[in-house]
């Protein structure tokens, strides 16, 4: 009898707790990838859709779609917190690895080690993102660690595009026009990256301290875009 009482008390507690939670964190107009089963709705078992027994292909495609959607968000930054709402680190990983591979160039087997190495680019991106995140937390930002990492990682996308363009341009003959094209592309993409990440992250900062949080972001993308601009394959 006592046990049954315990159970009911526990259950009501759970429900009230989760009711409050669902009010706070899930609003209707934001699309959420995957299915989240909510126990209060579990009485309607028939429409309850679980992702556990779906084919792997569907899962992968859904995840890829989620990543692609975030790419679109970065390339067309408007006021939306879809990038913050459900973060993932797949996109940043892909972008970071592809950027590092492209920057690696042919310098791996050449005698000079002056070019940026894979590990260096990789470390700069992740270490820089962690430092920016810690800084924004210390300044009193209301954003979580991985959300910030996700946004910063996804906003490397314009710079990866710039790198791709630079490599294509470098296939042509070297010259001042060549450099000018690269300079313009890199500057444009640098501005794009900084603006996009600022649009996503600035709202989480106290209004009077936005400049302080934006400065390290600016420095971070500046270093990366500078590395892209000075890259020349041997």
């Amino acid at each position, binding site marked *: 009898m006592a046990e049954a009482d315990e159970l009911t*008390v526990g259950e009501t*507690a759970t429900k009230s*707790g989760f009711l409050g939670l669902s009010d706070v964190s899930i609003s209707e107009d934001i699309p959420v990838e995957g299915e989240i089963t909510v126990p209060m709705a579990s009485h309607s078992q028939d429409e309850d859709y679980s992702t556990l027994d779906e084919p792997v292909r569907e899962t992968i495609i859904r995840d890829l779609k989620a990543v692609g959607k975030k790419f679109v968000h970065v390339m067309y930054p408007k006021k939306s917190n879809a990038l913050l709402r459900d973060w993932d680190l797949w996109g940043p990983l892909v972008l970071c690895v592809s950027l590092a591979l492209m920057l690696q160039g042919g310098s791996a087997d050449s005698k000079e080690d002056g070019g940026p190495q894979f590990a260096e680019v990789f470390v700069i991106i992740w270490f820089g993102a962690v430092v920016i995140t810690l800084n924004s937390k*210390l300044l009193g930002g209301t954003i979580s660690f991985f959300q910030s990492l996700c946004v910063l990682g996804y906003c490397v996308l314009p710079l990866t595009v710039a790198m791709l363009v630079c490599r294509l341009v470098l296939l042509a003959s070297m010259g001042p026009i060549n450099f000018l094209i690269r300079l313009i592309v890199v500057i444009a993409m640098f501005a794009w990256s900084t603006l996009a990440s600022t649009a996503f992250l600035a709202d989480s900062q106290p209004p009077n301290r936005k400049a302080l949080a934006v400065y390290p972001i600016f420095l971070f993308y500046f270093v990366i875009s500078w590395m892209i601009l000075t890259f020349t394959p041997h």
Partner: protein
Amino acid sequence: MASPVAPVGGARNGASPEWGGFEENIQGGGSAVIDMENMDDTSGSSFEDMGELHQRLREEEVDADAAAAEEEDGEFLGMKGFKGQLSRQVADQMWQAGKRQASKAFSLYANIDILRPYFDVEPAQVRSRLLESMIPVKMVNFPQKIAGELYGPLMLVFTLVAILLHGMKTSDTIIREGTLMGTAIGTCFGYWLGVSSFIYFLAYLCNAQITMLQMLALLGYGLFGHCIVLFITYNIHLHALFYLFWLLVGGLSTLRMVAVLVSRTVGPTQRLLLCGTLATLHMLFLLYLHFAYHKVVEGILDTLEGPNIPPIQRVPRDIPIAGLPIAVLNATAKAVALTLQPH
């Protein structure tokens, strides 16, 4: 069996349900999905939750220490009768490991909370402090104010790292067994932290009124001059320009630090020792950073150590070195012969 769960169930009505939720979910067969949601990182104020959770964890640990291990087992699982000995042990191990990891992660978060007051600045304050770092104030008889803040210094050090990377790249510096990035970070942070603690130690010996935090802030803002000078001179390679900036901008930021230190120290000897050390280190560091990673110096080194020249230089140098021992030997042999002759 019911008794240990009862307070937990009650506690769930309260503010923070984390671990209670975990136990309850095991028993009640509730949904693990929602438990994850509960720990979700996406909620806005996750930080406060973490701090609270850490607090709770600490309390729990203290409790656990007090109780015997056997009792703790029973308290955690609360289902002795249901499971076998083995599963209980495994669960206990996992619980312990999880708890250890979780408390480690949360203590990290707590450390961030400790640091937060030092980052409590406004953009206008940072701007004015940056400007003030270039303006020496001649006010010796009253201790000058130093703001204990770390945002500005930290950002200046990172800026210096970026500028240094730029200088290394343009001068084609090659570092064996290490990356440019690591070297730049090591140099800048090493200087900032190392010299701050060294000067703090000296200040302790000289009885100056300064704390470690103030020393870090002072030296950190002092790096603003370095950033300006290096950024300009890495891009415009003119020696006269560098020396001008070195004396003017570097000198101003050094003077500012010296003025502050002088106002906080009593006695001429102590003042001379402390400020002399700081000024020397600060100015020499700028000189080092400029010339260690500079294009022109790199060129000179190349001509000195290039592949063509050393063989030519080595030939004439080898002769006197090879000839000297023979001459010395001859002389000693003669001397020995002379000393031996009378006998």
